[in-house]
């Protein structure tokens, strides 16, 4: 008998353990649970937790559970892949816009079309770049969580020291090059500007505005061929090659984590970066200015990289609760607390009319310029599942040129040939 008991004691905990790993149930004690992987740590996470608490108080039937998911959103998709394989994804997750095409093919991702079409949601109040990044073939895969764009941030102190006039909104790329050259001072370890040479999308998206400003596009209108290797694009890449290799005015950041800290510490004069830098700029008390990107022929288009809250369908009850929560979260009042509180641009235009925005613009020097620059984000990257593969080829091409190992012409035409092959495979 004792032995039998021993057997039971040995086996039962194991079974209990495996059952416990089986997962969270949807509605305990009648409440509908919404698990929310927001990917935000520290102060940002606290803001979201506060919003969830407030929502839970006013909605007794629902419990939104904010969880970090992963502290680095780069890994969020990987985490959700694992959760999906285990059959237990979160109800809402923070996702990069570049993942949208793949997410659109995921059956568990809920289509939010009906949610955003409801007049009370105010979909038209969101910028076109955001709506486009959230929509794939008519399916709305998420609602915007953060919006940004690329502008030119410059360090006034370094410009004054070098006796160079501040950038203006009418700057050409040639103006940009000559200023970078004059700001560069090898003896002090100061660079005119920098480029993220990681070879991934962070390298590639900085290049697209130059293509678009000259009337080019990434793919042919039917989407079957690469169209980015235009003579104008070759010239733009050649400009960067000349700056990096001949002028030596470009700090090439090979892991994408150093270029902003170097700017904060006065080692780089100008950065092509987004509003996400504003908080650190304020913390480091940098005296800086923001203008739109330099342009070609008066065209100063930029690129926007909006991120989304994506809903995974864990049964209609939970999916509906998740949608209701997102409708509430993206209202201007809540957006002011989340976006402005975390140092980001408002995700919708109505938020910028609130008094909270005025406070925000006072606190962050570049806010108004970045907000205005959002209107320059008129084109988006193609929403196709093979975009990451194509982007990897272009990233390699740009890196080779910046390191002086290939000419702009051969690198871009080579990348276009690779892209055609990828597109043909489908």
């Amino acid at each position: 008998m004792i032995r039998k008991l021993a057997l039971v004691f040995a086996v039962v905990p194991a079974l209990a353990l495996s059952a416990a790993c089986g997962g969270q149930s949807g509605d305990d004690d009648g409440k509908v649970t919404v698990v929310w992987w927001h990917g935000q740590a520290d102060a940002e996470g606290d803001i979201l937790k506060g919003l969830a608490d407030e929502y839970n108080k006013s909605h007794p039937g629902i419990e939104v559970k904010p969880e970090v998911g992963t502290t680095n959103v780069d890994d969020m998709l990987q985490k959700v892949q694992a959760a999906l394989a285990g059959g237990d994804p979160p109800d809402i997750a923070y996702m990069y816009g570049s993942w949208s095409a793949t997410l659109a093919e995921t059956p568990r991702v809920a289509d939010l079309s009906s949610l955003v079409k409801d007049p009370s949601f105010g979909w038209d109040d969101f910028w076109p770049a955001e709506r486009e990044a959230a929509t794939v073939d008519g399916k709305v895969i998420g609602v915007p969580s953060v919006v940004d764009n690329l502008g030119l941030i410059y360090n006034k102190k370094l410009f004054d020291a070098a006796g160079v006039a501040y950038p203006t909104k009418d700057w050409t790329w040639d103006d940009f090059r000559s200023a970078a050259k004059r700001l560069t001072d090898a003896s002090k370890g100061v660079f005119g500007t920098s480029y993220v040479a990681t070879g991934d999308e962070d390298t590639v998206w900085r290049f697209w505005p130059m293509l678009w400003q000259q009337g080019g596009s990434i793919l042919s209108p039917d989407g079957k061929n690469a169209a980015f290797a235009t003579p104008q694009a070759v010239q733009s890449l050649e400009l960067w090659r000349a700056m990096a290799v001949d002028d030596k005015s470009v700090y090439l950041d090979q892991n994408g984590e150093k270029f902003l800290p170097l700017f904060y510490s006065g080692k780089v004069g100008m950065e092509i970066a987004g509003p996400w830098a504003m908080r650190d700029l304020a913390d480091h008390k940098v005296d800086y200015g923001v203008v739109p990107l330099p342009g070609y022929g008066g065209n100063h288009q930029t690129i926007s990289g909006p991120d989304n809250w994506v809903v995974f369908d864990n049964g209609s009850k939970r999916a509906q609760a998740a949608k209701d929560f997102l409708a509430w979260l993206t209202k201007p009042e809540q957006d002011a607390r989340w976006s402005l509180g975390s140092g980001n641009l408002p995700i919708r235009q109505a938020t910028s009319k609130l008094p909270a925005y005025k406070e925000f613009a006072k606190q962050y020097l570049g806010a108004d310029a970045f907000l205005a620059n959002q209107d320059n984000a008129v084109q988006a990257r193609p929403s196709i599942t093979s975009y990451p593969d194509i982007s990897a080829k272009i990233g390699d091409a740009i890196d080779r040129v910046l390191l002086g190992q290939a000419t702009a012409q051969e690198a871009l035409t080579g990348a276009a040939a690779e892209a055609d092959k990828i597109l043909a495979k489908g």
Partner: protein
Amino acid sequence: MRADTAAGALPLSGRRRKAGPRVRLMPQLTGWGFVGPATLVIVGLSIFPAVWALILSLRDDNLLAPGTFVGLQNYRDLLDDPDLMAATGHTLLYSVLFVPGSLLIGLPIALALNRPLRFRAFYRTCLFVPYVVSAAATGILANFVLDPQFGIVNDLLAGLGVARQGFLQDPSQALLTLVVVSLWGSVGLPIVVYLAALQDIPRELIEAARVDGAGPLRVFRAVTLPQLRPATVFLVIWQTIDALQLFDLVYTTTKGQPLDSTTVIVFYLYQQAFKLFHAGYGAAVAYALFVVTLLVSGLALWYARRGEAAA
């Protein structure tokens, strides 16, 4: 499991047939009951994922959308992938430099530390600390120290009149720099293993050799080295597996850059599976690497056994 239990019980139950097998079955089951939880954990944490990855490697799948079964297509694609070939080349070059390098550096240091030295424990600790530090920390540290523009190593070189180097940011130096950083980070292991082996060598052997008139070099070649053979075999296999599976250091330093010059096999499969949405293909690469690792280890073991028999 069932069959094993029954077979194990047979010889005993044969002796006292009357009691029947049930009596003996109970202790067996109790045994399994105790082993069971651990077995479940091992099966759940390693065998189940391994089988799952094998199935995944036969599919065109990104773990998000429903994939399709493609048979051996992923494995056929392996053979025609220039990027994978390049990554394999990087891994091989790294292994060829790292494995002998760590032994050739580790052995002399172990020999030195095996002598009566002042502060010996202190030196031992110093040399072993980098091994205990995580590869992530080592990588971040290397990034700082070796930064071409702002790193301390280039400042030192400039002080010595040597030109500034690109290190991890120069496509022709990055992989070599990674070898040096890994050697710094992992030479502690060969040192400790060799030290233990050195202390296991019977003093009589060395004394006998000396009495026979052997000088220090001869003693080292004829006594010490052969006695260290098992340790060397272990280290070669261990370090080779480590080298073939290099990932974390690359991830925290170069992310495979510049110009993919440090994209080793495991980093390449990580990119394929998690950055480019080809999880099925990534799993196929992982399985191919597993088979190669198994073959290499097997070969090394076989070679070592053969050598022992011959000696």
